């Protein structure tokens, strides 16, 4: 393999790491300038000044900010995200289950949404400006325009309450079989699919239509290829970069933006965990979750960048 590609990929990864450090700093500064005192919020309004001072000393809150930042960062790097103030649990172990749940839900939604969106995009181009194209666009845009909670409750109403195919509450626990898990997350996964579908579909359609103007599309048509083959074989490979970009943005949304859906279906994922602890002003948890979300975003964007580099034959096969 060639060196320019390797160089570009290394650059992207290095940039991602730098970005992650910058984000960790931002998160720390952000929680630092929030009003309120951690010791106060742990001990409550009735605490004595001596108790507060002792706790501050114990938590190291009297140290300068940069010392506390470095201590936190060092912990994060060694896998220690700290302990939750409100419950005293170790954050890393509480998060790992929930992160797995969130990733499972996101994966279920993505497995359906990404191929479906690309297929619909291809079909929309094949029958462009005709009734099929308009119907696909109308359906996808409508499903995106409805708020997630509205779609969620509609699904609950029909599939859980009226026809009782799926549970209204997505309870998952250890030792549950894979099929049971799928059954449990069917409704939230469907809701998420509907939310992210249109964006990816529209971008696929636009990116391919852009390529359809090229002379090589005419070459393919003049070889006698069927329209859908022309699109699949000759247009789509040249539209991968923008499509991958929007797919990765939506995957990130599936992991990071699922708060509402998780709350509706009472699904024990990251979103719900974050909401609970924001309400309780549990700063270490908020910091940890924020950092994980940022890492997910950065990772997926690196994947998108690298895919775009790999999809470019000029970079893959230099002269």
């Amino acid at each position, binding site marked *: 393999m060639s060196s320019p590609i390797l160089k570009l990929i290394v650059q992207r990864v290095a940039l991602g790491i730098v970005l992650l450090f910058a984000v960790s700093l931002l998160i720390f500064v952000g929680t630092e300038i929030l009003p309120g005192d951690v010791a106060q919020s742990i001990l409550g309004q009735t605490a004595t000044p001596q108790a507060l001072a002792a706790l501050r000393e114990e938590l190291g809150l009297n140290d300068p900010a940069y010392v506390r930042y470095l201590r936190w960062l060092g912990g994060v790097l060694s896998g220690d995200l700290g302990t939750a103030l409100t419950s005293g649990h170790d954050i890393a172990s509480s998060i790992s289950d929930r992160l797995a749940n969130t990733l499972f839900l996101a994966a279920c939604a993505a497995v359906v949404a990404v191929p479906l969106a690309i297929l619909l995009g291809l079909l929309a181009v094949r029958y462009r400006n005709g009734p099929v194209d308009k119907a696909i666009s109308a359906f996808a845009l409508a499903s995106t325009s409805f708020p997630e909670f509205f779609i969620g409750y509609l699904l609950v109403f029909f599939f859980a309450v009226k026809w009782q195919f799926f549970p209204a509450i997505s309870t998952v626990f250890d030792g549950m079989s894979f099929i049971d898990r799928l059954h449990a997350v069917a409704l939230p996964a469907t809701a998420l699919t509907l939310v992210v579908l249109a964006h990816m579909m529209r971008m696929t359609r636009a990116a391919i239509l852009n390529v359809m103007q090229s002379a090589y599309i005419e*070459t393919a048509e003049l*070889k006698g*290829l069927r329209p859908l083959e022309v699109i699949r074989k000759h247009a789509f490979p040249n539209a991968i970069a923008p499509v991958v970009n929007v797919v990765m943005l939506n995957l990130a949304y599936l992991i990071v933006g699922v708060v509402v859906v998780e709350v509706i279906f009472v699904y024990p994922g990251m979103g719900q965990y974050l909401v609970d602890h924001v309400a309780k002003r549990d700063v270490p948890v908020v910091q940890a979750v924020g950092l994980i979300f940022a890492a997910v975003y950065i990772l997926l964007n690196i994947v998108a960048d690298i895919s775009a580099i790999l999809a470019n034959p000029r970079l893959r096969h230099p*002269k």
Partner: protein
Amino acid sequence: MPDEQSRKAKSGRLLDIRNLRIEATTYPPGEPPKTITLVHDVSLTLERGKVLGLIGESGAGKSTIGLASMGYGRGGCRIIGGEVVLNGRDILKGGRSGLRKLRGREVCYVAQSAAAAFNPAHQLMDQVVEASLLHGTAKRAAAEKRAVELFRKLGLPDPENIGKRYPHQVSGGQLQRVMTAMALCSEPDLIVFDEPTTALDVTTQIDVLAAIRDAIRDTGVAALYITHDLAVVAQVADEIMVLRHGRLVEWGDTRQIIKEPRQEYTNALVSVHEIEHQEKKAADTPFLSVKNVTAAYGQGTVKVLKNVSVDIHSGQTLAVVGESGSGKSTLARAITGLLPPMEGSITFGGKKLSNALSARSKEDLRQLQMVYQMADVAMNPRQPISTIIGRPLEFYFGMKGAERDRRVAELLDKIEMGKGFADRYPAELSGGQKQRVCIARALAAKPKLIICDEVTSALDPLVANGILKLLLELQAEEGVAYLFITHDLATVRSIADSIAVMYRGEVVRYGSKSEVLAPPFDPYTDLLLSSVPEMEIGWLDKAIASRRMESAGN
């Protein structure tokens, strides 16, 4: 379905187009859609194994007719009348699936720009054998074997492995041959060549042309050869059809068309290049002098100009000739300061011009103006012509209002376009008119030198001729000098007083026109001169036989 027996036969009628009529709908901004007729009842017949040249200016309907033989309408063109009988059946009655069966099987297409016509995402071999596999004319291994044979026949380097390359890894001239191999691979009865050598350098064109001609002859395929260059088509065609504005002008065998044209328009095409231009004597001191200039892209890594020295004399034309990549346009960029030279100097009117654009005075900038090859993209499409020409008047001379309008009208008059054009937009003008406007804009600054970068290359021969005449008249009236960059030696003869021949970043021959164009020649100038197609049957064989060196594009 075509009868296999008649398909195999080497003689007989292959294609019979009767009263073809093609329409397109255009949507001019702010006006109701208009339906225009592109082809008016054109008929033609083609025997098996013969080559018919379709010739005419842009808008003559050549490509439209060529594509109609595959039942294809480009960009919303509709075939609304007539018959296209191929292998004994009217293909327009076969429906879409019937058309798909014949495209890539009975008729194949070679586009003008192979660089754009190949899919950048796939290896060449996959694209070359695609039609054969699709139509089941051969299994993959057999198709690839045939492709390699064709690559060899077309003179491609490393025929065994070139198929593994991607389009961007192969030069333009080579891609054009690969595209010809692609068209031949599924053993069609007919190939439509749509200006296959127009985008190539003359030195490359001659090789590709010879390769195409031999491939046609050896495989016995019939061809429609579309071009605007009569000299090119005379080398490959058995018969020539001259078209204009979608109508037939004249149709006859090649010798008759070029030797005894019966129509006035054909005659004009045949005799188009001849402008008599008397060479002017160089004055003692040039007003612009380029001394030992070396310039490079990418912090000195890629040297594109090596130690170049030329002089330009007041009111005269220096033509810079060479193939693409020889550094012609880079020389222009170095003179204008767009690419500051690494070494060497440029003197203007006795004083040294600063190398960098940002350090030059407005007055220096005014003295050097440019006209580009692509007039369309050199003008702001949202500005009317008066604004485009008026801008240098405002910028350099502070002219406003009525004074400016009067001067714009004068300039429009000079380029032989009426005042009525002042309010038009670039999109409403023809290619030649757009180029005239660009010339007027350059002239508006009253420069001492106008750099003309391939200004006639994108134009039809007759229109290009008009532009050359205009440039000569303007030079006589205004005393402006030209640095005329071109790859076309015929143009050079018509306009130049002195000539610099460039090859791989160096000036290999330099002097007055009469000196440069008189023997003995250095090998490269000889190659350039001998590569210019002449309107002479059999020129191609003579030229190939007498060449002393290969072109750089190979």
